[in-house]
């Protein structure tokens, strides 16, 4: 059991109204209190009027309790769930451009294979790899590729979902995306 006063990483899922300014309200809340957001990812949910944010915040129990209460106090926030102590799945996607000299191309590909990373771009001198996983896996991959010379690296920030059958978002009928075939101007398109 961790000591409650030790700062540690928390993964917090926040359901918010999908309105302009909400991101800034959430970011402002953290900056106004001097809390640091380690990563944040935002996207629409099944219900397009609701967005879901996944925040990773480092802090002791006191800071996290205040942060979640303050989040909940924001008028546009619908629900705040700290997933840290619940069973949940976390994933992050990373794109890595790595030097690919003839001498280490094979090793890069082997490493990528072990981590189930995909090569999404190839040039005579570089690869771009795409990998998903939890933080530990991605860190391990990055450490192995570092000696080859990583030129550029982009991470999405974490997304997380609770395990088990319970749903965190009220189940809403997914609105049907308009398909190309619905457009009367498109004729003879094989959909």
């Amino acid at each position, binding site marked *: 059991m961790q000591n409650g006063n030790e700062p540690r990483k928390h993964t917090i899922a926040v359901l*918010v*109204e999908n309105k*302009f*300014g909400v991101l*800034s*309200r959430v970011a*402002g809340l953290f900056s*106004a209190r001097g809390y640091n957001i380690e990563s944040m990812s935002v996207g629409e949910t099944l219900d397009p009027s609701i967005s879901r944010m996944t925040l990773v915040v480092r802090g002791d129990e006191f800071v996290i*309790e*205040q942060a979640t*209460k*303050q989040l*909940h*106090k924001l*008028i*546009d*926030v*619908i629900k705040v769930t700290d997933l840290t102590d619940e069973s949940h799945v976390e994933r992050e996607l990373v794109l890595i451009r790595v030097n690919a000299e003839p001498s280490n191309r094979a090793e890069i590909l082997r490493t990528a294979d072990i981590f189930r990373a995909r090569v999404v771009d190839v040039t005579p001198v570089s690869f771009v790899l795409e990998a998903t996983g939890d933080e530990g896996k991605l860190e391990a991959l990055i450490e192995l590729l570092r000696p080859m010379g990583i030129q550029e690296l982009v991470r999405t920030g974490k997304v997380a979902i609770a395990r088990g059958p319970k749903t965190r978002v009220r189940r809403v009928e997914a609105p049907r995306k308009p398909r190309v075939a619905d457009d009367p101007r498109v004729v003879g398109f094989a959909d």
Partner: protein
Amino acid sequence: MKMAGARIVLECLKRQGVDLIFGLPGGAVLPIYDALYDFEGLRHILVRQEAAAGHAAEGYARTSGRVGVCLVTSGPAATNLVTALQDAMMDSIPIVAFTGQVPTHLIGNDAFQEADNVGITRPCTKHNFLVKDGKDLGPIIREAFHIASTGRPGPVHVDLPKDVLVKEWDLVWPAQVHMRSYNPNYDGHPGQIKRAAKLLARAKKPVLYVGGGVISADASAELRELAEMAQIPLTQTLMGLGSFPMEHPLSLDMLGMHGSYYANMAVHHSDVLVAVGARFDDRVTGRVDAFAPHAEIIHIDIDPSSISKNIKVDVPIVGDCRRVLVKLVEALREELREEPAPAIREGRRQWAAQIAEWKRDFPFRYEWSDDVVKPQHVVQEISNATGGEAFIVTGVGQHQMWAAQYYKFKHPRMWCTSGGLGTMGYGLPTAMGVQAANPGKLVINIDGDGSFQMNSQELATCFTEGLPVKTVIINNSGHGMVRQWQRIIYKERYCAIDLPGVPDWVRLAEAYGCVGLRVTKPSEVVPAIEKMISTPAPVVLDVCVDKDECVFPMVPAGGANTDMILEPPTREVRDKAAKSQTGF
């Protein structure tokens, strides 16, 4: 039926029950002022600076219990309003502020008088809106009033682009407000209320510590019932003054940095502390690790984020103060049905005796002088002359603390002061709002010469709008509270505190069409106050007081409440203080 957005705004205000707005026109809100020209049922009070519109709305809200409304234009007007919004935010005052904005197609273009209004007010409002589409006007205004007045009250800002005000739209007026993301909890948890009642029934040294939440929730009667039923001594925060009559035998007056000796000692030695609608502000607690160290703490508050923010509490009860107090009184009555154990009865008897002793030995006190007016004396005489039945407003500084210490408050919603933000210049514009909300009633603004100067232009509003606010300037020719700190903590290295001589307040008052009076001798104080009260016009009473007078008791910043000093410290004490990081 379609109508211009500006007209929709006014219609919505009327439907919302608004009868009075404080404002100042300008380019972006001209459509609203044009619609106001022949709109019936809305009084508009033209202020002289935008912050004053916000403070006036605060005064209106605090004394009437309704939402205060102000209306100003874009850019500089909105930024001027920010102080009042943050003030209302810190003190949980329900106001709705409307600002103009450049037309939507110009937003972000650095247009004339453009500012990112909603970006600026975001951290200093409970919520804010930018209306981009006229069909949202009705629903947004409805939500704005709902948010401002429910839960923990606070300021809401609505930004209105000019084109939205000019174009014609259908008025949409939702029958009720439903927001899935905003549902304040009003009823306290029954289990926690029961726990609180059990704790209180067994307490030997209980104290009630009550704040502005009791006033917002209109819970004074319930509070009194609780205090009297269980005979619990009660102390009030600066924001809570008026929630319990000061002359009640159970009253311990104000606590905290400039609170009474007996309130601070009672809280420190208590075994059960019940915080009602208060937020353990640093001016109340002093050093937090030394605050009420022996007490189990019960905290009743509508805002979950207030709970265990500064002080860890043992029994949190999230809910509306009035509803929770009703339930707590019921639960406690149940608990008290059985005769308490002799040990508890004996404990309570000793506690009452101890408090009586503190009250007798260390009352608020000052040295009388026959030559120079003592500021505390002025407040006492105002209190005597009004019998606690006047609306009292203050600025910020020494005079504010003396008003809180020496005025005998009787009723809730008759005291307005800037508690959280400590906004100098708050007094006059707020008093104006109080007077507008309470025509024919006596409104006294107890102000300082430094504080009053920050918004004295509103004397013009008082004069032209027929708002006979009485201002008493406790004039010590300087920034007294700063002087006090420089004297006590900074070894009398006085810096940038003198405001000698100018302006001549009597002539300034007269220049604004008001009545000016001056007092320099103690014997003149009472007649001048009587004359001021009987004058039907706005009055400025300039009372020249002893500039060396300090506010005591005083808990130096960073000290524990038990470190409070009751008189100017000796050189020895001061030198010791200078060596420590925290003061004393």
